[in-house]
Protein backbone atom coordinates (compact mmCIF):
# COMPACT_ATOMS: atom_id res chain seq x y z
CA UNK A 1 0.00 0.00 0.00
CA UNK A 2 1.21 3.47 -0.88
CA UNK A 3 0.24 6.64 0.90
CA UNK A 4 -1.35 9.58 -0.85
CA UNK A 5 -1.93 13.15 0.21
CA UNK A 6 -5.32 14.54 -0.73
CA UNK A 7 -5.39 18.33 -0.92
CA UNK A 8 -8.81 19.97 -1.03
CA UNK A 9 -9.07 23.25 -2.92
CA UNK A 10 -12.00 25.50 -3.56
CA UNK A 11 -12.76 29.13 -4.14
CA UNK A 12 -13.92 29.88 -0.64
CA UNK A 13 -14.36 33.61 -1.30
CA UNK A 14 -17.20 32.93 -3.74
CA UNK A 15 -18.88 30.57 -1.33
CA UNK A 16 -22.50 31.68 -1.18
CA UNK A 17 -23.87 32.37 2.28
CA UNK A 18 -25.21 29.11 3.48
CA UNK A 19 -27.93 28.43 6.01
CA UNK A 20 -27.05 26.51 9.18
CA UNK A 21 -29.00 23.55 7.74
CA UNK A 22 -26.87 23.60 4.61
CA UNK A 23 -23.71 23.85 6.69
CA UNK A 24 -24.89 20.92 8.76
CA UNK A 25 -25.63 18.88 5.65
CA UNK A 26 -22.19 19.68 4.22
CA UNK A 27 -20.53 18.71 7.47
CA UNK A 28 -22.38 15.39 7.42
CA UNK A 29 -21.23 14.71 3.87
CA UNK A 30 -17.61 15.23 4.93
CA UNK A 31 -18.03 13.03 8.01
CA UNK A 32 -19.69 10.26 6.01
CA UNK A 33 -17.08 10.47 3.29
CA UNK A 34 -14.09 10.31 5.69
CA UNK A 35 -15.90 7.63 7.71
CA UNK A 36 -16.32 5.59 4.52
CA UNK A 37 -12.58 5.73 3.83
CA UNK A 38 -11.84 4.79 7.45
CA UNK A 39 -14.30 1.87 7.15
CA UNK A 40 -12.18 0.53 4.29
CA UNK A 41 -9.16 0.83 6.60
CA UNK A 42 -7.61 3.25 4.12
CA UNK A 43 -7.41 6.41 6.21
CA UNK A 44 -3.90 7.21 7.45
CA UNK A 45 -4.74 10.61 8.88
CA UNK A 46 -7.87 12.65 8.62
CA UNK A 47 -5.51 15.65 8.41
CA UNK A 48 -6.74 19.15 9.11
CA UNK A 49 -8.93 21.90 7.85
CA UNK A 50 -7.23 25.22 7.24
CA UNK A 51 -8.34 28.76 7.92
CA UNK A 52 -9.17 30.61 4.71
CA UNK A 53 -6.53 33.32 5.08
CA UNK A 54 -2.74 32.91 5.27
CA UNK A 55 0.61 34.54 4.68
CA UNK A 56 3.26 33.85 2.07
CA UNK A 57 6.94 34.60 2.59
CA UNK A 58 8.83 35.14 -0.64
CA UNK A 59 12.52 34.75 -1.47
CA UNK A 60 13.08 38.48 -1.15
CA UNK A 61 11.74 38.24 2.43
CA UNK A 62 8.55 40.10 1.64
CA UNK A 63 5.45 38.80 3.33
CA UNK A 64 2.12 39.01 1.57
CA UNK A 65 -1.38 38.03 2.42
CA UNK A 66 -1.80 34.82 0.63
CA UNK A 67 -1.78 32.35 -0.61
CA UNK A 68 -1.70 33.71 -4.15
CA UNK A 69 -3.31 36.90 -5.30
CA UNK A 70 -3.65 35.61 -8.84
CA UNK A 71 -5.50 32.39 -7.93
CA UNK A 72 -8.93 32.59 -6.33
CA UNK A 73 -9.06 29.09 -4.93
CA UNK A 74 -7.17 28.14 -1.80
CA UNK A 75 -6.38 25.04 0.16
CA UNK A 76 -9.19 24.23 2.57
CA UNK A 77 -7.69 21.13 4.07
CA UNK A 78 -5.85 17.86 3.52
CA UNK A 79 -5.94 14.17 4.49
CA UNK A 80 -3.66 11.19 4.01
CA UNK A 81 -5.02 7.91 2.66
CA UNK A 82 -3.48 4.61 1.64
CA UNK A 83 -4.20 2.86 -1.64
CA UNK A 84 -2.69 0.26 -3.97
CA UNK A 85 -2.23 2.67 -6.85
CA UNK A 86 -2.92 6.16 -8.14
CA UNK A 87 -6.10 4.87 -9.72
CA UNK A 88 -7.31 3.47 -6.41
CA UNK A 89 -6.43 6.72 -4.63
CA UNK A 90 -8.32 8.71 -7.26
CA UNK A 91 -11.30 6.39 -6.77
CA UNK A 92 -11.29 7.28 -3.05
CA UNK A 93 -10.99 11.00 -3.84
CA UNK A 94 -13.96 10.93 -6.25
CA UNK A 95 -16.45 10.96 -3.39
CA UNK A 96 -14.99 14.10 -1.81
CA UNK A 97 -17.69 16.69 -1.03
CA UNK A 98 -15.43 19.56 -2.16
CA UNK A 99 -16.11 18.43 -5.76
CA UNK A 100 -19.79 19.25 -5.31
CA UNK A 101 -19.02 22.93 -4.67
CA UNK A 102 -16.80 23.37 -7.71
CA UNK A 103 -13.57 22.61 -5.89
CA UNK A 104 -10.91 20.04 -6.70
CA UNK A 105 -8.82 17.39 -5.00
CA UNK A 106 -5.13 17.11 -5.73
CA UNK A 107 -3.83 13.57 -5.26
CA UNK A 108 -0.11 13.21 -4.58
CA UNK A 109 1.82 10.09 -3.75
CA UNK A 110 3.91 10.52 -0.63
CA UNK A 111 7.55 9.77 -1.28
CA UNK A 112 8.77 6.90 0.88
CA UNK A 113 12.36 8.15 0.89
Amino acid sequence: MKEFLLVYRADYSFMPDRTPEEMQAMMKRWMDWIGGIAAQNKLVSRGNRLESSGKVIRSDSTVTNGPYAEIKESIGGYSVVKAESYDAAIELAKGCPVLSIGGNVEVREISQM
Partner: protein
Amino acid sequence: MQEPALIPHLFRTEYRKVIAVLCKRFGFDQIEIAEDIASDTFLSAALNWGIQGIPENPVAWLYTVAKNKAKNYLQRKATFTNKVLPESSMQANTITQPDYEIDLSPQNINDSQLQMMFAICHPAIPPEAQIGLSLRILCGFGIEEIADAFLTNKETINKRLFRAKEKLREEKIPIEIPAPEALDNRLASVLTTIYLLFSEGYYSISNNKVLRKELCMEAMRLCYMLVENKHTNKPPVNALLSLMCFHASRFAARIDKNGEYVLYDDQDTSLWDPDLISKGAYYLHLSASGDQLTKYHLEAAIAYWNTQKGDTPEKWENILQLYNRLLQIEYSPMAALNRTFALSKANSKQEAIIEAEKLQLSNNHFYFTLLGELYTGIDNRKAKQHFEKALHLAKTITDKQTIQKKINRLG
Protein backbone atom coordinates in the same frame (compact mmCIF):
# COMPACT_ATOMS: atom_id res chain seq x y z
CA MET B 1 -26.57 -18.54 52.11
CA GLN B 2 -26.76 -22.32 51.76
CA GLU B 3 -23.90 -24.07 53.52
CA PRO B 4 -22.55 -26.08 50.60
CA ALA B 5 -22.28 -22.93 48.49
CA LEU B 6 -20.46 -20.93 51.14
CA ILE B 7 -16.91 -22.12 50.50
CA PRO B 8 -16.98 -21.69 46.70
CA HIS B 9 -18.51 -18.27 47.20
CA LEU B 10 -15.91 -17.23 49.75
CA PHE B 11 -13.21 -18.76 47.65
CA ARG B 12 -14.07 -16.48 44.79
CA THR B 13 -14.38 -13.31 46.89
CA GLU B 14 -11.67 -13.86 49.50
CA TYR B 15 -9.00 -15.80 47.63
CA ARG B 16 -8.28 -12.83 45.38
CA LYS B 17 -7.95 -10.52 48.37
CA VAL B 18 -5.58 -12.80 50.28
CA ILE B 19 -3.49 -13.53 47.20
CA ALA B 20 -3.16 -9.84 46.30
CA VAL B 21 -2.01 -8.88 49.78
CA LEU B 22 0.43 -11.81 50.04
CA CYS B 23 1.83 -11.22 46.54
CA LYS B 24 2.35 -7.57 47.28
CA ARG B 25 4.08 -8.50 50.53
CA PHE B 26 6.25 -11.34 49.16
CA GLY B 27 6.84 -10.04 45.62
CA PHE B 28 6.47 -11.98 42.38
CA ASP B 29 9.59 -14.00 43.27
CA GLN B 30 7.47 -15.91 45.74
CA ILE B 31 4.10 -15.79 44.04
CA GLU B 32 3.82 -19.60 44.16
CA ILE B 33 4.24 -19.49 47.94
CA ALA B 34 1.56 -16.84 48.18
CA GLU B 35 -0.73 -19.05 46.11
CA ASP B 36 0.06 -22.08 48.26
CA ILE B 37 -0.73 -20.21 51.47
CA ALA B 38 -4.00 -18.91 50.06
CA SER B 39 -5.02 -22.34 48.79
CA ASP B 40 -3.98 -24.02 52.06
CA THR B 41 -6.15 -21.56 53.93
CA PHE B 42 -9.23 -22.62 52.00
CA LEU B 43 -8.31 -26.28 52.33
CA SER B 44 -8.13 -25.82 56.12
CA ALA B 45 -11.52 -24.12 56.01
CA ALA B 46 -13.06 -26.98 54.04
CA LEU B 47 -11.68 -29.54 56.55
CA ASN B 48 -12.39 -27.64 59.76
CA TRP B 49 -15.78 -26.26 58.89
CA GLY B 50 -16.92 -29.69 57.78
CA ILE B 51 -16.15 -31.10 61.23
CA GLN B 52 -16.69 -28.18 63.58
CA GLY B 53 -19.32 -26.27 61.66
CA ILE B 54 -19.01 -22.89 60.07
CA PRO B 55 -17.53 -20.25 62.38
CA GLU B 56 -19.52 -17.18 63.31
CA ASN B 57 -17.41 -14.92 61.13
CA PRO B 58 -16.04 -17.08 58.31
CA VAL B 59 -14.11 -14.25 56.63
CA ALA B 60 -12.31 -13.31 59.87
CA TRP B 61 -11.53 -17.00 60.36
CA LEU B 62 -10.00 -17.20 56.88
CA TYR B 63 -7.93 -14.07 57.44
CA THR B 64 -6.60 -15.30 60.78
CA VAL B 65 -5.57 -18.62 59.27
CA ALA B 66 -3.98 -16.94 56.26
CA LYS B 67 -2.10 -14.51 58.51
CA ASN B 68 -0.78 -17.32 60.71
CA LYS B 69 0.34 -19.39 57.76
CA ALA B 70 2.08 -16.39 56.22
CA LYS B 71 3.67 -15.48 59.56
CA ASN B 72 5.00 -19.02 59.99
CA TYR B 73 6.44 -18.88 56.54
CA LEU B 74 8.12 -15.51 57.11
CA GLN B 75 9.53 -16.66 60.45
CA ARG B 76 10.91 -19.85 58.97
CA LYS B 77 12.47 -17.89 56.17
CA ALA B 78 13.97 -15.35 58.61
CA THR B 79 15.35 -18.16 60.76
CA PHE B 80 16.96 -19.62 57.70
CA THR B 81 18.49 -16.31 56.69
CA ASN B 82 19.61 -15.37 60.20
CA LYS B 83 20.61 -18.63 61.77
CA VAL B 84 21.33 -21.15 59.10
CA LEU B 85 23.32 -18.77 56.97
CA PRO B 86 26.59 -17.77 58.70
CA GLU B 87 25.79 -15.82 61.87
CA SER B 88 28.80 -13.61 61.43
CA SER B 89 27.51 -12.13 58.21
CA MET B 90 26.86 -8.41 58.25
CA GLN B 91 23.40 -8.97 56.83
CA ALA B 92 22.18 -10.76 59.92
CA ASN B 93 23.00 -7.82 62.15
CA THR B 94 21.01 -5.37 60.10
CA ILE B 95 17.78 -7.27 60.62
CA THR B 96 16.13 -5.93 63.74
CA GLN B 97 12.78 -7.09 65.01
CA PRO B 98 11.24 -8.02 61.70
CA ASP B 99 7.53 -7.51 61.22
CA TYR B 100 5.74 -10.72 60.35
CA GLU B 101 2.24 -9.28 60.51
CA ILE B 102 0.11 -9.44 57.38
CA ASP B 103 -2.15 -6.45 56.88
CA LEU B 104 -5.56 -7.69 55.74
CA SER B 105 -7.36 -4.41 56.36
CA PRO B 106 -9.88 -3.35 53.70
CA GLN B 107 -7.61 -0.45 52.74
CA ASN B 108 -4.55 -2.63 52.20
CA ILE B 109 -6.59 -5.28 50.39
CA ASN B 110 -7.92 -2.66 48.02
CA ASP B 111 -4.52 -1.04 47.46
CA SER B 112 -2.87 -4.40 46.87
CA GLN B 113 -5.52 -5.45 44.38
CA LEU B 114 -5.15 -2.23 42.39
CA GLN B 115 -1.35 -2.52 42.41
CA MET B 116 -1.61 -6.12 41.25
CA MET B 117 -3.94 -5.01 38.46
CA PHE B 118 -1.29 -2.65 37.12
CA ALA B 119 1.46 -5.25 37.47
CA ILE B 120 -0.47 -8.00 35.70
CA CYS B 121 -1.62 -5.69 32.90
CA HIS B 122 1.92 -4.48 32.25
CA PRO B 123 2.54 -4.03 28.51
CA ALA B 124 5.44 -6.52 28.71
CA ILE B 125 3.03 -9.36 29.50
CA PRO B 126 1.29 -10.90 26.46
CA PRO B 127 -2.47 -10.12 26.37
CA GLU B 128 -3.55 -13.76 26.62
CA ALA B 129 -1.42 -14.20 29.73
CA GLN B 130 -2.79 -10.98 31.20
CA ILE B 131 -6.32 -12.33 30.89
CA GLY B 132 -5.37 -15.66 32.47
CA LEU B 133 -3.50 -14.03 35.35
CA SER B 134 -6.31 -11.54 35.87
CA LEU B 135 -8.87 -14.30 36.13
CA ARG B 136 -6.69 -16.30 38.52
CA ILE B 137 -5.23 -13.60 40.74
CA LEU B 138 -7.57 -10.62 40.45
CA CYS B 139 -10.81 -12.57 40.14
CA GLY B 140 -10.02 -15.76 42.08
CA PHE B 141 -11.20 -18.12 39.32
CA GLY B 142 -10.19 -21.76 39.55
CA ILE B 143 -7.97 -23.26 36.85
CA GLU B 144 -10.88 -25.37 35.67
CA GLU B 145 -13.13 -22.36 35.27
CA ILE B 146 -10.48 -20.50 33.29
CA ALA B 147 -9.99 -23.55 31.07
CA ASP B 148 -13.76 -23.71 30.59
CA ALA B 149 -13.95 -20.05 29.63
CA PHE B 150 -11.24 -20.49 27.00
CA LEU B 151 -12.59 -23.86 25.83
CA THR B 152 -9.29 -25.53 26.59
CA ASN B 153 -7.89 -27.89 29.23
CA LYS B 154 -6.37 -27.29 32.66
CA GLU B 155 -2.91 -28.25 31.50
CA THR B 156 -2.88 -25.54 28.83
CA ILE B 157 -4.02 -22.92 31.32
CA ASN B 158 -1.46 -24.03 33.91
CA LYS B 159 1.30 -23.74 31.32
CA ARG B 160 0.07 -20.33 30.24
CA LEU B 161 -0.04 -19.06 33.84
CA PHE B 162 3.38 -20.53 34.56
CA ARG B 163 4.92 -18.68 31.61
CA ALA B 164 3.14 -15.47 32.57
CA LYS B 165 4.56 -15.66 36.12
CA GLU B 166 8.04 -16.28 34.74
CA LYS B 167 7.59 -13.17 32.62
CA LEU B 168 6.54 -11.08 35.64
CA ARG B 169 9.77 -12.14 37.36
CA GLU B 170 12.03 -11.73 34.34
CA GLU B 171 10.74 -8.24 33.64
CA LYS B 172 11.02 -7.38 37.35
CA ILE B 173 7.63 -5.74 37.19
CA PRO B 174 6.97 -3.71 40.34
CA ILE B 175 3.70 -4.15 42.21
CA GLU B 176 2.64 -0.53 42.45
CA ILE B 177 0.37 2.13 41.03
CA PRO B 178 2.46 3.83 38.31
CA ALA B 179 3.73 7.38 38.84
CA PRO B 180 1.37 10.13 37.61
CA GLU B 181 3.35 10.80 34.43
CA ALA B 182 3.16 7.14 33.39
CA LEU B 183 -0.36 6.54 34.66
CA ASP B 184 -2.39 7.31 31.51
CA ASN B 185 -0.40 4.89 29.37
CA ARG B 186 -0.43 2.10 31.92
CA LEU B 187 -4.10 2.67 32.61
CA ALA B 188 -4.81 2.26 28.88
CA SER B 189 -3.22 -1.18 29.07
CA VAL B 190 -5.31 -2.11 32.15
CA LEU B 191 -8.48 -0.96 30.39
CA THR B 192 -7.65 -3.04 27.32
CA THR B 193 -7.40 -6.14 29.50
CA ILE B 194 -10.63 -5.36 31.34
CA TYR B 195 -12.40 -4.86 28.03
CA LEU B 196 -10.99 -8.14 26.67
CA LEU B 197 -12.17 -9.89 29.81
CA PHE B 198 -15.65 -8.46 29.35
CA SER B 199 -15.74 -9.35 25.65
CA GLU B 200 -14.56 -12.86 26.46
CA GLY B 201 -17.70 -13.26 28.54
CA TYR B 202 -20.05 -11.30 26.32
CA TYR B 203 -19.15 -12.82 22.97
CA SER B 204 -17.42 -16.06 23.94
CA ILE B 205 -18.37 -19.30 22.29
CA SER B 206 -18.33 -21.18 25.59
CA ASN B 207 -21.74 -22.63 26.37
CA ASN B 208 -21.39 -22.05 30.08
CA LYS B 209 -23.82 -19.16 30.46
CA VAL B 210 -23.29 -18.65 34.18
CA LEU B 211 -19.53 -18.51 33.78
CA ARG B 212 -19.77 -16.09 30.89
CA LYS B 213 -21.91 -13.70 32.86
CA GLU B 214 -19.45 -13.92 35.74
CA LEU B 215 -16.60 -12.94 33.44
CA CYS B 216 -18.52 -9.82 32.48
CA MET B 217 -19.37 -9.03 36.10
CA GLU B 218 -15.72 -9.45 37.12
CA ALA B 219 -14.58 -7.09 34.37
CA MET B 220 -17.09 -4.55 35.63
CA ARG B 221 -15.96 -5.04 39.23
CA LEU B 222 -12.31 -4.41 38.31
CA CYS B 223 -13.27 -1.30 36.38
CA TYR B 224 -15.38 -0.15 39.32
CA MET B 225 -12.34 -0.47 41.61
CA LEU B 226 -10.49 1.92 39.30
CA VAL B 227 -13.39 4.38 39.40
CA GLU B 228 -13.44 4.23 43.19
CA ASN B 229 -9.76 5.16 43.52
CA LYS B 230 -8.96 8.84 43.24
CA HIS B 231 -5.73 8.28 41.30
CA THR B 232 -7.27 6.05 38.68
CA ASN B 233 -10.73 7.61 38.39
CA LYS B 234 -10.11 9.06 34.91
CA PRO B 235 -12.58 9.81 32.11
CA PRO B 236 -11.67 6.75 29.96
CA VAL B 237 -12.24 4.46 32.98
CA ASN B 238 -15.74 5.90 33.43
CA ALA B 239 -16.37 5.54 29.70
CA LEU B 240 -15.41 1.85 29.78
CA LEU B 241 -17.58 1.20 32.84
CA SER B 242 -20.47 2.97 31.12
CA LEU B 243 -20.01 0.86 28.00
CA MET B 244 -20.02 -2.36 30.01
CA CYS B 245 -23.14 -1.30 31.97
CA PHE B 246 -25.04 -0.65 28.73
CA HIS B 247 -23.99 -3.97 27.22
CA ALA B 248 -24.73 -5.86 30.42
CA SER B 249 -28.21 -4.35 30.56
CA ARG B 250 -29.16 -6.64 27.67
CA PHE B 251 -27.92 -9.89 29.25
CA ALA B 252 -31.38 -11.30 29.89
CA ALA B 253 -32.76 -10.23 26.53
CA ARG B 254 -30.04 -11.48 24.23
CA ILE B 255 -30.33 -15.19 24.99
CA ASP B 256 -33.71 -16.93 24.93
CA LYS B 257 -34.88 -19.79 27.10
CA ASN B 258 -33.41 -22.35 24.69
CA GLY B 259 -30.01 -20.71 24.97
CA GLU B 260 -30.22 -19.24 21.48
CA TYR B 261 -29.10 -15.74 20.61
CA VAL B 262 -31.85 -13.21 20.14
CA LEU B 263 -31.05 -10.59 17.53
CA TYR B 264 -31.09 -6.99 18.70
CA ASP B 265 -34.22 -6.17 16.67
CA ASP B 266 -36.10 -9.12 18.14
CA GLN B 267 -35.17 -8.59 21.76
CA ASP B 268 -37.93 -8.22 24.33
CA THR B 269 -37.01 -4.73 25.49
CA SER B 270 -38.90 -5.22 28.76
CA LEU B 271 -36.04 -7.59 29.69
CA TRP B 272 -33.46 -4.82 29.38
CA ASP B 273 -32.20 -3.92 32.84
CA PRO B 274 -33.22 -0.30 33.54
CA ASP B 275 -30.91 -0.14 36.55
CA LEU B 276 -27.82 -0.94 34.48
CA ILE B 277 -28.97 1.43 31.75
CA SER B 278 -29.18 4.30 34.21
CA LYS B 279 -25.80 3.35 35.71
CA GLY B 280 -24.39 3.38 32.17
CA ALA B 281 -25.80 6.86 31.61
CA TYR B 282 -24.35 8.00 34.94
CA TYR B 283 -20.80 6.89 34.12
CA LEU B 284 -21.12 8.17 30.55
CA HIS B 285 -21.92 11.57 32.03
CA LEU B 286 -18.87 11.34 34.33
CA SER B 287 -16.65 10.32 31.40
CA ALA B 288 -17.42 13.56 29.57
CA SER B 289 -14.63 15.61 31.15
CA GLY B 290 -11.07 16.30 30.15
CA ASP B 291 -9.94 16.54 26.55
CA GLN B 292 -9.32 12.89 25.81
CA LEU B 293 -11.77 11.19 23.45
CA THR B 294 -11.11 7.47 23.59
CA LYS B 295 -12.70 4.61 21.74
CA TYR B 296 -14.48 3.74 25.00
CA HIS B 297 -16.22 7.13 24.95
CA LEU B 298 -17.43 6.53 21.41
CA GLU B 299 -18.41 2.92 22.03
CA ALA B 300 -20.24 3.89 25.21
CA ALA B 301 -22.14 6.59 23.32
CA ILE B 302 -23.05 4.05 20.62
CA ALA B 303 -24.17 1.61 23.31
CA TYR B 304 -26.24 4.39 24.86
CA TRP B 305 -28.09 4.94 21.58
CA ASN B 306 -28.64 1.21 21.32
CA THR B 307 -30.52 1.30 24.61
CA GLN B 308 -32.96 3.76 23.01
CA LYS B 309 -35.91 1.78 21.75
CA GLY B 310 -37.24 2.23 18.24
CA ASP B 311 -35.80 3.48 14.97
CA THR B 312 -35.59 7.25 14.98
CA PRO B 313 -33.59 9.18 12.36
CA GLU B 314 -31.82 10.98 15.22
CA LYS B 315 -30.70 7.71 16.78
CA TRP B 316 -29.21 6.30 13.57
CA GLU B 317 -27.59 9.57 12.52
CA ASN B 318 -25.87 9.75 15.91
CA ILE B 319 -24.75 6.14 15.73
CA LEU B 320 -23.40 6.67 12.21
CA GLN B 321 -21.36 9.71 13.21
CA LEU B 322 -20.02 7.94 16.30
CA TYR B 323 -18.87 5.03 14.12
CA ASN B 324 -17.34 7.48 11.64
CA ARG B 325 -15.23 8.86 14.47
CA LEU B 326 -14.52 5.49 16.09
CA LEU B 327 -13.10 4.16 12.81
CA GLN B 328 -10.76 7.12 12.61
CA ILE B 329 -9.38 6.29 16.07
CA GLU B 330 -9.20 2.54 15.58
CA TYR B 331 -10.23 0.47 12.59
CA SER B 332 -11.85 -2.88 13.18
CA PRO B 333 -13.87 -4.99 10.72
CA MET B 334 -16.81 -5.12 13.17
CA ALA B 335 -16.90 -1.33 13.49
CA ALA B 336 -16.74 -1.00 9.69
CA LEU B 337 -19.68 -3.38 9.31
CA ASN B 338 -21.73 -1.72 12.04
CA ARG B 339 -20.99 1.67 10.54
CA THR B 340 -22.32 0.49 7.20
CA PHE B 341 -25.47 -0.85 8.85
CA ALA B 342 -25.99 2.53 10.56
CA LEU B 343 -25.45 4.19 7.17
CA SER B 344 -28.32 2.15 5.72
CA LYS B 345 -30.59 3.32 8.54
CA ALA B 346 -29.46 6.95 8.55
CA ASN B 347 -29.06 7.49 4.80
CA SER B 348 -30.35 4.69 2.60
CA LYS B 349 -29.90 1.00 1.85
CA GLN B 350 -28.76 1.87 -1.67
CA GLU B 351 -25.93 4.04 -0.39
CA ALA B 352 -24.99 1.42 2.20
CA ILE B 353 -24.81 -1.31 -0.47
CA ILE B 354 -22.30 0.75 -2.46
CA GLU B 355 -20.23 1.36 0.68
CA ALA B 356 -20.51 -2.24 1.85
CA GLU B 357 -19.17 -3.55 -1.44
CA LYS B 358 -16.06 -1.43 -0.97
CA LEU B 359 -15.26 -3.13 2.35
CA GLN B 360 -14.24 -6.43 0.74
CA LEU B 361 -14.21 -8.39 3.98
CA SER B 362 -14.80 -11.53 1.99
CA ASN B 363 -13.70 -14.07 4.59
CA ASN B 364 -15.97 -12.62 7.26
CA HIS B 365 -19.42 -14.16 7.64
CA PHE B 366 -20.75 -10.98 9.26
CA TYR B 367 -19.87 -9.18 6.03
CA PHE B 368 -22.14 -11.41 3.98
CA THR B 369 -24.82 -11.28 6.66
CA LEU B 370 -24.74 -7.48 6.36
CA LEU B 371 -24.95 -7.63 2.55
CA GLY B 372 -27.85 -10.07 2.90
CA GLU B 373 -29.61 -7.64 5.26
CA LEU B 374 -29.04 -4.71 2.92
CA TYR B 375 -30.37 -6.55 -0.13
CA THR B 376 -33.40 -7.85 1.75
CA GLY B 377 -36.43 -6.07 0.29
CA ILE B 378 -34.37 -4.69 -2.58
CA ASP B 379 -33.25 -7.88 -4.27
CA ASN B 380 -34.22 -10.95 -2.24
CA ARG B 381 -32.46 -13.32 -4.61
CA LYS B 382 -29.14 -11.55 -4.01
CA ALA B 383 -29.94 -11.34 -0.31
CA LYS B 384 -30.33 -15.11 -0.19
CA GLN B 385 -27.05 -15.65 -2.04
CA HIS B 386 -25.22 -13.50 0.49
CA PHE B 387 -26.84 -15.19 3.48
CA GLU B 388 -25.84 -18.56 2.05
CA LYS B 389 -22.24 -17.43 1.73
CA ALA B 390 -22.43 -16.25 5.34
CA LEU B 391 -23.83 -19.61 6.40
CA HIS B 392 -20.95 -21.34 4.66
CA LEU B 393 -18.34 -19.17 6.43
CA ALA B 394 -19.92 -19.17 9.91
CA LYS B 395 -18.13 -21.40 12.39
CA THR B 396 -20.30 -21.61 15.47
CA ILE B 397 -23.73 -23.18 15.79
CA THR B 398 -25.07 -19.93 17.24
CA ASP B 399 -23.97 -17.94 14.20
CA LYS B 400 -25.34 -20.55 11.81
CA GLN B 401 -28.69 -20.52 13.62
CA THR B 402 -28.85 -16.73 13.43
CA ILE B 403 -28.17 -16.72 9.68
CA GLN B 404 -30.58 -19.58 9.02
CA LYS B 405 -33.33 -17.54 10.70
CA LYS B 406 -32.67 -14.70 8.31
CA ILE B 407 -32.83 -17.02 5.29
CA ASN B 408 -36.10 -18.48 6.55
CA ARG B 409 -37.56 -14.99 6.84
CA LEU B 410 -36.92 -14.34 3.15
CA GLY B 411 -39.40 -17.12 2.48
